[in-house]
């Protein structure tokens, strides 16, 4: 696969592999996807700065096959973008797929799932985020909201969570 690696230097690829749960091939696939939605403004050879500064707006992320039917797509993009604007740089884009990949341990998945459902981003799932019944069940310490550890505690017991929280890239 030597000639496909053109977009990144070997060093960059190694770096990505070391920092994410993706395989080399997946990283390249993600790169191709990113190229697709970036309207040709994405350079042929990707430098470090470019990967962390060039961002694609949510309007084009929206059209991605992997996301377009997902009711949470805006939230997904939001939790991975630093400023909450839901536009992603390539690094953040890759990170998203890393979390959703099947190699990612379920605890990591659970943490991001928590952020996903924490719509007002206050670190708790409270009544603004949830229905009352759900709240009462998940709230182990009865303080009226679900904290991150409570969430992880509950969600990891769900057999469907890990297979469902997975995007095949």
């Amino acid at each position, binding site marked *: 696969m030597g000639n496909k690696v053109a977009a990144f230097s070997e060093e960059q690829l190694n770096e990505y592999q070391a920092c994410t749960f993706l395989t080399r091939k997946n990283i390249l696939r993600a790169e191709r996807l990113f190229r697709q939605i970036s309207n040709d403004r994405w350079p042929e050879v990707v430098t470090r700065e470019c990967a962390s500064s060039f961002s694609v707006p949510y309007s084009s992320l929206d059209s991605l096959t992997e996301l377009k039917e997902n009711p949470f797509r805006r939230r997904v993009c939001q939790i991975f973008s630093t400023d909450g604007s839901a536009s992603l740089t390539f690094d953040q884009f890759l990170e998203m797929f890393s979390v959703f990949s099947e190699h990612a341990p379920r605890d990591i998945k659970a943490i991001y799932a928590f952020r996903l459902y924490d719509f007002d981003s206050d*670190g708790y799932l409270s009544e603004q985020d949830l229905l009352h019944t759900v709240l009462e069940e998940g709230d182990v310490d009865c303080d009226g909201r679900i904290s991150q550890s409570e969430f992880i505690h509950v969600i990891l017991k769900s*057999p469907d969570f890990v297979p469902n929280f997975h995007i*095949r890239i």
Partner: protein
Amino acid sequence: MASHVYAVEVEDIPLNEVNYEQTSSSDEDYSHVHLRRARTDVHLSQRRSQDSIRYHSYNGREHHLQHTLPSRHEEIVTMAHTSVESIEMQFYEPVGRRVRFADDECRGSGELLSTHTLHYGSEHRPSAWFNTMIARRRRGVSPNTEEEAVDEIAEAMVGDEKLMSDDVDGELKMRETLRELTKPLRVKKELRRKLTARRSSHRSAAQTISRIKYLKYSISMWWYKLRQSVRDTVHDYSLWHKELKEIEGTFGTGVGSYFRCGFLLTPQLLAHARVNDPPSANNTAALVFLVNDGSEMIASAMRVSDSLPNTNIADPSLTSQKSDADDADSSTSYTDNGQFGALDWLTGAGWFNNTELYYGTYLNRSFYLVTNLWYNIPEAYFFVILLAYIIYFIAIRHRVNALYKNNYIDIEHDVSATFVRKVFSSWDFSITERKAAKLKHRSIYNELKELLQEFLNEELEEDFWSKVIGWSVKFVFWVIILTLLGLLGWATYLMLDSDINKDIGNGFNLLVYPLIVTCIIMFVPSVFGLIVKFEGYKIQRHRIYVTLMRTILLELTVLGVLVGFWFMQATDPVPSTTETPVTTDDDQYDDDDDDDDDSGEFISEKLRRAAGPEKNDDCWETSLGQEFYRLLIIDFLIALVMHLFTLMFFVATCKNTTKGKVHQFLLEFDISRNTLHLIYNQTLLWAGLFFCPLSPLIVLLKITIMFYIQKFSVLKVLRPDERPWRAAQTETVFFALTLVSLVLAVMGYGFILFRGNTSSCGPFQNHEPHYIDFLWDITQSNEQIILVIISWILKPGVVAGILGILLILVYCAKSMAEGRAEMIKVLRRQLELEVRDRAFLLQLTEKYKRGEHKVASPAQVRAASPPPSTSVGPHELTQRASFVFSDNKVHPADSAPRPRHFSDYSDSHSLDRYSS
């Protein structure tokens, strides 16, 4: 060593200092409430006094005071979560398991630094760098900018000698840690750069590394990288990646898992069955990698094992056939060489008789590969097939284990939060199609509705008589179905009997039996599906399970009758030989080869008589192999025809309707039926493996073709089931069934091997009277010791002893599980009590603020409260709440008002003002 460091750090920093601090701090608000041993609240006061702004009004948002109560109750949640292992250990290190801290990245009041604790469970302490971080946070040091954060983590990691150690462990550990950091990629990259630089400088500074050490390092690093790349390539190029994505996109994970696990069951399954548990700690990392590696080796071995029988055996036997062509013995069984008809493809008879497809073709020979190396076919045959079974067994058992653990055991003791689970984990993120998304919405809706229904129905107790009626109806239905199965078995037996007594050419007659059997197996399950609806199983899942069980029984009956019939054909005519040999010594058979040959001929004569004059193969194993071959092929054909039918049906309905309505006419794709079909195939494979050693190849071919056909029809013609398909749990059941069928097949073989008479063909032809005797022959010819060991193991006393030990182990495991469940309950209760304490306290503070209470004088407090005890046992913690007030009333915790939520104490928010 590092754990020691850890203990010191943790014990030193927060507790003692803070205790001291509390008395000296200016917390007048709380001084009227005298708490004994209130660690949580101590932390609270510390935080409040030190950095309340950062903790409480982080990001300009006001947070409630109790949000930031640090570790205690969270810890208990974690403990309830991980209490499966070593609860006590956790109790004595109450601090610093997890910490939330302010950070630029996180928008809430805090986040987990990494998944460290949860991830590694409680059996391993958090690593040193993590504790350093915690200690810094507790001291109130926290970074303001991202660079600072990176620097801090890097610093902490450099300080961790495990992470920075020179060996491969350190390197790997570092990778893991980096990956599992829940930080943006930018931060991780920065960190990695820093650490790598530090590492290399570190290494160059310590030039004392010996050459051997360096060599060792580079070898193991190289090995790790090799493994990683192999794993990655296996994952990347795994079969049908694109197809699976497409299917999952349109149909959701349920159907996807059918395609993934079902089809990959045969060859490829285990590539996905990697051990899910990540490496636990530094020293066990290597071990787990080994396990990982092991399971992957099994995976690859699985793939190899499919081709093993034909490569290892077929080729040598070919050569042996050539070399022994002039041998009279071998030529007898190949009388009808030559002509090859088209029908042979279906019947598996005729020309195929001579191929390596069947048992009978393999010879009892050993021959020389090279001059000195001899190759014994019986041994090879026996051991390769044994190996294949063992590998299959390990693979499937491993999978069942993992699934069972994840989907049943972990959930069993904690069924409280079904709604939460449903709400948070229902959405399937792999869906990419509008149609599927809509369907998913509906299915989630249905599922929730069903759940609510169950929830509401729970209270409705049935009265005794309706229960009795319900049970008797079920019983009657079971009896009916079992008799039906018995009749079916009898019918197939009669059919086989008449088949064999009839004058059989090579014509279509041979196909009648498999055709009928396949039809039975195809269509009777749908009858079962209909019947089950009248039986009054209330829960959908139970219906599925009952149908599954019946279908499996059906398959087993049919296959059992088949094998049993041929087996009886082989044994019945010569009852005398079955009685004698069991008790006699093995030595006897070694000496008299002539005797063996005689009796072999005797059997074959009888067989010939039984099988009719036209059947010139005197080898019942081959005939049985042919039956299996026919079953496989016919099954395949019928499945093809069925798919053709659905396609035609689709086309026919499409013509008459407008485009929008097409969707209604699509047939449903029934996952459970299709999966059962796969299991049936698998069972055929296992049952036939001994008699038809190339059957894995056939099944492989067949399944590959079926995959594409099914994919086409699923994507184009069928529509997914609307009923919720609990993929994970049902998958477990399916795998368990597969395991059961495997075990049964192996047991059947064991019986045949030990009790069956060898016929005059096949690799075991000269070992009389039982197959297994060949093993004794080997052991006798080589070493006596193995025989001694085997016979010792088979002694009743030893077997009973082993069983007894197993029983004790099971009992221990069971009681341990119960104990843990109990512990979880206790912890939950404790948590609740603590929350009540806190709520009560807050309420009192409010009251005090309003001037309704007065502070108790120290003397009164001392009088009212018993002297503090020194040790903190787990259970004492629950009883610690007894407060003393100025009105000399002692309020025990249990008499305190019990709040459901903190929102009941709306004015408690105002405490924040006190803190700042």
